[in-house]
């Protein structure tokens, strides 16, 4: 794959829930390997749905998603969606709500997928897990259970768990919105650290500071379509579209 070929290519993506709630209505997005895309938009606008589609968690009505130049998700027209499971394995996601496995300790959460999906040996997986946890300042928590962790720690563990599979793309869906304000920074720091290592990512956030600092590109989604798409200075700083401007003023309390 050359540097200029898109990593993700979304074409004419339509997605509804039960055919009634039309959420995504013809989305076209191309993402380069170096992109860190921040998606903003009104609540209920389909941001989570977009990420869930990219993660291969949802059926789609129409359109397709390519990944690394290969077909990944495709609507077949007969209501069925084809999802390439191998491509899906190279994408990681962290959710808004905590999704750690409560019956496993932190290290158990990290090594489950590498062992079951890639057949990695336990000792090997544990060594990699410890290295990751150390990097995230969580080494002392390796044997703790999720219920014994703070919200910020849980999300950092969830990020580490996804990274164990060496993803080529990371999806973050409002990973700090369930957190107490004082815990937000520790999670954002970890994601910023990943950004420095050139991890391609799509991030949904309502945190203006974070969006400005992490985005190479900002997409404003509303009503199931892309309203505005551009560099953060433009979309966040001087939006062209009236709807974007209104949204940013309302959510981020910024007057232009």
């Amino acid at each position, binding site marked *: 794959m050359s540097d200029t070929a898109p990593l993700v290519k979304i074409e004419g993506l339509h997605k509804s829930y039960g055919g009634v709630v039309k959420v995504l209505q013809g989305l076209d997005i191309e993402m380069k390997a170096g992109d860190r895309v921040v998606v903003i938009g009104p609540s209920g606008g389909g941001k989570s749905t977009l990420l*869930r589609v990219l*993660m*291969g*968690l949802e059926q789609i009505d129409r359109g397709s998603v390519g990944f690394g130049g290969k077909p990944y998700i495709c609507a077949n027209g007969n209501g069925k969606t084809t999802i390439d*499971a191998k491509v*899906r*394995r190279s*994408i*990681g*996601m962290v*959710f808004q*709500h*905590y*999704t*750690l*496995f*409560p*019956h496993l300790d932190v290290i158990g959460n990290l090594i*489950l*997928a590498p062992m*079951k*999906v890639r057949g990695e040996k336990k000792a090997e997986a544990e060594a990699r897990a410890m290295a990751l946890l150390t990097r995230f300042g969580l080494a002392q928590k390796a044997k703790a*259970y*999720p*219920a014994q962790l703070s919200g910020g720690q*849980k999300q950092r563990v969830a990020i580490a*768990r*996804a990274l164990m*599979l060496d993803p080529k793309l990371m999806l973050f869906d409002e990973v700090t919105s369930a957190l107490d304000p004082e815990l937000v920074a520790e999670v954002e720091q970890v994601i910023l650290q990943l950004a420095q290592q050139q991890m391609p990512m799509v991030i949904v956030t309502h945190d203006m500071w974070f969006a400005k600092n992490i985005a190479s590109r900002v997409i404003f989604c509303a009503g199931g379509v892309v309203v505005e798409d551009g560099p953060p200075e433009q979309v966040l700083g001087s939006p062209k579209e009236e709807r974007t401007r209104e949204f940013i003023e309302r959510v981020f309390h910024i007057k232009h």
Partner: protein
Amino acid sequence: MTFDFAIVLKFQHALLLGLWTTLKLTLICILLGCILGFLVALARTSKNAILRGPSSVYVEFFRGTPVLVQLFWIFFCLPLVLGVELSNMASGVIALTLYMGAISSETFRASLKSVGREQLDACVALGLSPWARTANVVLPQAVLRAAPTLLSNCISLFKESALVSAVGMADLMFVGQNISNNTARPIEVLTAVALIYFVIAFPLTRAVTVIEQRILKRLAV
């Protein structure tokens, strides 16, 4: 009226034999009933209507009829229907296993449901196969969550097992009744029988509370 509890000691051997029959019956039916209950719970939550229908009928039927009637039916009618002789023990095991299967399947069903959609999404996002998902995420959480109620189900079974005395199985209740009839000392003997049941069931009911708290602490995310 004077009480002579020494009479209980005189028959202690017979009572212990009865208790042994009760325990044996209960333990066998717990084991078989839990396996049956888990499979039935899977069947009832499956998408396949052919699995769902009969399993639902079975559970609702056994939950909606008295255990005593079930016992009588299996002791007296089942041999006629099947055309084979069934020993007392075999009939007892069949009847109480079916009863345990029905009540434990409801316990398993509730705990299977309690494993949220988020957990399944996380499994897919991590690339876990449907098999790995069930074996490593759904099943362990379901069993943990089911544990307290399952133990309550076991205690119920242990107590309900006294009903087999009505069809002539020599369990603790049956032996106690016999001794009480023969000695005309119902107060002493039946009180002793009650105490034996209680001494076994009570610590288990306490254990339910302790396990509940532990599991809540562990699984509350």
